[in-house]
């Protein structure tokens, strides 16, 4: 009888623990999750001895260059980033190399566009991933303010001084402490076009100036094809349009001032840039699907509209990662069907590049997380992805010859020779203004695309949204 009672108390305890654990896990779900090895067993340490054997087989021979990493047998960690589909597959190979070197079990969570929201939820719930790749330095700053990030300066000091130029280090440094390391870069000043469509229209490439672009758009339209495809369904594509124009009309100094809200959005320089943008946006017949149609086109769709079948437009502006969408979602071949020219110069502006990138940050003081940050700073970690394509690295240890196609090598080279290179402006700003779907700049530029006539009102709304987000 005594043992019977005890058994029951144990049973209640076990049930209770299970229920609580179940609730916690139910509450912490979010984003699509893939696991390198066996799923679901990540919490129980008792089963690791069998699973780690399975894990270590994925790597085979351990790479010699990453031998300085600790042996993390039996440890598990989680990485979150915006990458999905093709990019996720490519990054998985980087993770595999890390797993091979350290035997740590790595889970990758793809957050999609909403990384600010997902990280925010996870941090509030006390269960952040170990490492995250944040696409916006502004988000990194917001996380630092919440004390959600661990300093990484000591972890990467060697690699950073050897392979990273000062600009990239500065980008990851807040108030003198380094919290982030730029891993993946994108040249966001690339204007992509269908070679066939521009040839039929008799337009010569590269289109060097903005005036040439506008007159070419007229010619292309006459040739029977809509000149521009705009992915207005994603607000960030519109901020990139604006930033490239602003960088060329106002210059890098003003650009940086606007990024820090040192000048207001009602500044005349913003008016000038928006007027230039309206030259395209206000020509409904120049935009595939018209203005209202473009507002429902996501970024990948905007690329498919140019390089897929049926072809709906001749040109699409976005960063060098357009190449990845072309190869994965259309039959078009880079170089023969698709190519790009640098974003045209406006009023004689010098060559300028706007870059975006994903920055690695450490959210947990875990051994595996720290080791991963160390790993990601090595040229090897970048080289794995560079060779797969769709990736530009700020790491100078990666040889240019490793880029798989000349189109991407050109993008990397362009970034080196640009007289002024700036980081994506909306990404530097507080995410409430520059990084959240249907809010702030993303939403207001969508409103601008919907109705390019109400320029003044848009500028005032931009200013009041910026004021609210910057808190000044």
């Amino acid at each position, binding site marked *: 009888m005594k043992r019977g009672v005890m058994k029951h108390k144990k049973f209640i305890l076990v049930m209770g623990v299970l229920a609580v654990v179940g609730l916690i896990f139910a509450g912490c779900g979010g984003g699509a999750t893939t696991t390198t090895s066996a799923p679901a067993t990540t919490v129980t340490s008792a089963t690791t001895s069998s699973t780690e054997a399975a894990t270590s087989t994925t790597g085979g021979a351990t790479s010699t260059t990453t031998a300085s990493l600790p042996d993390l047998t039996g440890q598990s960690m989680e990485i979150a980033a915006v990458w999905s589909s093709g990019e996720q597959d490519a990054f998985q190979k980087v993770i595999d190399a890390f797993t091979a070197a350290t035997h740590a079990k790595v889970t990758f969570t793809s957050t999609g566009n909403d990384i600010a929201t997902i990280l925010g939820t996870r941090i509030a719930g006390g269960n952040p991933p170990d490492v995250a790749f944040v696409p916006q330095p502004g988000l990194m700053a917001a996380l630092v303010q919440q004390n959600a990030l661990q300093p990484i300066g000591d972890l990467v000091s060697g690699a950073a001084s050897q392979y990273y130029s000062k600009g990239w280090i500065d980008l990851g440094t807040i108030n003198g402490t380094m919290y982030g390391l730029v891993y993946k870069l994108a040249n966001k000043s690339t204007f992509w076009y269908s070679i066939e469509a521009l040839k039929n229209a008799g337009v010569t490439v590269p289109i060097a100036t903005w005036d040439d672009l506008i007159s070419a758009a007229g010619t292309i339209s006459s*040739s029977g094809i809509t000149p521009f495809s705009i992915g207005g369904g994603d607000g960030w594509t519109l901020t990139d349009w604006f930033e490239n124009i602003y960088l060329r009309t106002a210059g890098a100094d003003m650009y940086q001032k606007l990024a820090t809200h040192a000048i207001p959005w009602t500044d005349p320089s913003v008016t000038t840039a928006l007027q230039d943008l309206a030259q395209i946006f206000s020509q409904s017949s120049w935009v595939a*699907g018209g203005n209202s149609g473009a507002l429902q086109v996501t970024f990948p769709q905007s690329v498919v509209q140019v390089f897929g079948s049926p072809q709906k437009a001749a040109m699409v502006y976005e960063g060098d990662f357009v190449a990845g969408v072309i190869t994965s979602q259309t039959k078009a071949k880079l170089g023969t069907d698709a190519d790009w020219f640098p974003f045209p110069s406006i009023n004689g502006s010098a060559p300028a590049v706007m870059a975006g990138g994903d920055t690695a940050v450490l959210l947990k003081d875990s051994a595996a997380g720290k080791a991963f940050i160390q790993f990601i700073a090595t040229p090897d970690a970048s080289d794995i992805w560079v060779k797969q394509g769709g990736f530009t690295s700020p790491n100078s240890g990666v040889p240019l010859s490793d880029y798989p196609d000349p189109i991407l090598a050109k993008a990397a080279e362009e970034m080196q020779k640009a007289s002024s290179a700036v980081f994506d402006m909306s990404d530097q700003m507080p995410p409430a203004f520059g990084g959240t779907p249907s809010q702030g700049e993303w939403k207001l530029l969508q409103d601008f695309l919907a109705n390019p006539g109400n320029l003044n009102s848009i500028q005032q709304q931009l200013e009041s949204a910026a004021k609210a987000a910057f808190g000044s």
Partner: protein
Amino acid sequence: MSEPAKDDGNGRQGRGGNGEQPGPVGAAPAGAGWLATAGGAVATLGRTRLRGWRPSRWTIALLFLIPALVFLGVLVVYPIFFSVVRSLYGTPGQGFVGFHNYKAMFTDPTTLTAIKNNAIWVAVAPTLATLIGLVFAVVTERVKLRTAFKIVIFMPMAISFLSAGVIWRLVYEQDPHIGLANAGISAIVDVFRPPGQYPNATPSQPQLLKAQGYAFDTASSHAADTTVLLGLVGIRPSLVPSNAVQARPAQAQPGALAGTVWLDFKPGGGGTAGAIDPGERGLPGIAVEALQNGKSMGSAKTALDGTFFIEGLDPGVKYAVQLGSSAFRPAYGGFSWLGAALVTPSIIVAYIWIWAGFAMVLIAAGLAAIPRDVLEAARVDGASEWQVFRKVTVPLLMPVILVVLVTLVVNVLKIFDLVIVIPPESTQAQANVIALQMWRVSFGGGLNQGLGSALAVFLFILIVPAMAFNVRRFRSET
């Protein structure tokens, strides 16, 4: 609680009217569950403290309630109070802000849109879903395949709301090749107004040819016996019929207005606008009319080389030339269901698609419980079917209808999933609702969980009356 249970059990058996054997309770297999275990625990507890003590009914009730109270406290009461307290604080940097969040909530235009949309939702969605459910319930009573019918109507409830949202996002796509709603409309529209062969064409010389709707009129009049050159551009070369040939100027004929309509764009560029260059082909099949004071005086169709001859005109009289709209009308481009204006009604339709089945099932159950003789009596008294429905069925069903309605009101106040999935990012702000706004400000860009908590508290206050109503109903029924 470690004393042997058997002796006490025997001793107790006589005293309590409780015929249950404590032994078996203690020894019950593990699978017996919470109830049996709790009973055992209570019995043992009572016995340890006081041999002769019989716990009062209240104590026992309390002991039984403890597990539920703990769960309710941890999962319901604590979060509510925490949210209220949290709503008085700002972001981690701001600290205590008093009622600032509540003030911000009612001055921020985004939140006001959300509140307005929530009001539309509450006013429209539950009523419509209940009405449609009622109609379905009454109709399915009378049809033969009622079970099959009900299953079909109820089916959407079996799909997760997220998936249902994705389905409706596709239904509402603007491109008629993707969106089901627009595909249906375009199938009908294209029958009555078939798309032309050369949509989106524009004149190569805008000063000569003006667009009138989808048709084109010459800016000036032309005498019979003369010829005109009407160049068009913006036509995809693949749309020109493959048997079209090199365009050529028409030969002037007495009593006829002649001319050429051609694609004035040389593939590869380099042509002159307004002149027929080698390699530029005619545009066959365009209806051309000669107009005098807006009245058609003769017509013709363009040939493979783009030439046309409008015969039987008075020499010396001047005519305007019109290129008929039938050739230039674009295919139906699709209605913007998820545009700024209609996005909320569109989502409400999706909501009704899901929840009408729920209303139908509950109301049908109520309908089955209505005594047939009342209905028969009404019919015998000479009431028409409508009168029976209106004066007998609906009043008898009122309690069920109210419960359905109130449940849906509570449900609609909390609406979130459909609003985040269906609208594209560009119109999500116009479709915003309180629950979505709460989530966005708490965890999106601003990470302002204070404001989010304030919104949550506001939502809670809105829901309380509906919940109170439901609780009172349950109480009056038992």
